[in-house]
């Protein structure tokens, strides 16, 4: 901080000069506080630490869910806007150098870290651009608290990702003369909508049909979002946007044989995940 002891004597020479110099000193010190670098450090100040370190962040709060941690700090008491925050995450409570990762937050007081379903310990500290570090504030205090990132649940994923699902669709087929027509419908009978049940809730899809299919052939039937398609190869039906409906086998010429697909009115069957 700049102080000019002789400044007071200039008042007797010229009040205008005194006033001008006072304003310059004030502006310089104000700027130094906001930038975080002392323009006139004390002679005994070590290099790179012209300012005293700020107080540690007043608080650290950490929560983990869906494979991500949310960390919020409270500002260092008495600090200026130049203060910088540094977060550290460790896999062990002793914060050893080899298992600790530092995340510079800049002037931000909150961040999200997507580290996955791991257990981690957190602490934070602060500094000015030209000061040493403050002491740490540790989540949990002297006994660091472990935080789990948590597994990512179905609701945290994109559509069609849930692994457990079934539906109320019935996918059967009839002989259309020279080929097979497949019919997709719900528990209300032909033309009624069907539903898919999963960890993301219940989705409703319209009834429909597919014509021109082969006799006595197994198909993978999907809803593309606007239409029904029947594939003979499972690998063709893997697009993320496809909703699996069922795996029926079409009837033989004359309408005999075949096997319906879908979960049927009670779910189950082959209305869930792809089955061979």
């Amino acid at each position: 901080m700049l102080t000019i002891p002789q400044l007071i004597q200039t008042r007797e020479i010229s009040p205008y000069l005194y006033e001008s110099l006072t304003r310059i000193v004030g502006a310089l010190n104000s700027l130094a506080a906001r930038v975080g670098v002392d323009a006139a450090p004390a002679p005994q100040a070590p290099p790179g630490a012209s300012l005293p370190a700020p107080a540690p962040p007043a608080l650290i709060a950490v929560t983990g869910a869906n494979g991500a941690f949310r960390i919020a700090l409270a500002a260092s008491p008495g600090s200026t806007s130049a203060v910088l925050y540094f977060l550290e995450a460790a896999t062990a409570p002793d914060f050893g150098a080899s298992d600790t990762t530092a995340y510079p937050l800049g002037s931000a007081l909150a961040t999200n870290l997507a580290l996955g379903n791991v257990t981690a310990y957190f602490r934070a500290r602060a500094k000015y651009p030209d000061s040493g570090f403050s002491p740490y504030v540790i989540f949990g205090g002297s006994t660091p608290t472990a935080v789990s990132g948590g597994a990512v649940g179905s609701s945290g994923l994109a559509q069609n990702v849930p692994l457990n699902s079934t539906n109320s669709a019935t996918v059967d087929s009839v002989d259309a003369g020279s080929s097979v027509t497949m019919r997709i419908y719900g528990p209300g009978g032909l033309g009624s909508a069907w539903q898919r049940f999963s960890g993301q809730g219940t989705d409703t899809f319209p009834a429909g049909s597919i014509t021109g299919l082969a006799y006595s052939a197994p198909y993978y039937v999907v809803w593309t979002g606007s239409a029904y398609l029947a594939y003979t190869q499972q690998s063709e039906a893997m697009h993320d946007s496809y909703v699996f409906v069922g795996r029926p086998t079409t009837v033989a010429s004359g309408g005999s044989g075949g096997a319906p697909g879908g979960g049927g009115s009670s779910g189950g069957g082959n209305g869930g995940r792809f089955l061979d």
Partner: protein
Amino acid sequence: MPSRIIAKTFSVHTGALHVTIEDDLGARTVHTIHVLEPDGTEADVSSIIAAALVQSDHRAARLRAAFRRHGWSG
């Protein structure tokens, strides 16, 4: 015929015509008609769509009858 066609899209990718039909109750069905397959002549496509419209009407009529029987509106 109260049921109507509200969308008709030909997919170059699948070689199929996707026809969306809506009945007068607002329920929709989607029919994938393989126009490049053995039953894919123009006449066959028309008859498939006509049959789908009749089926849609029939189902809506049955639903409406059920509504009336139970004293619901519809």
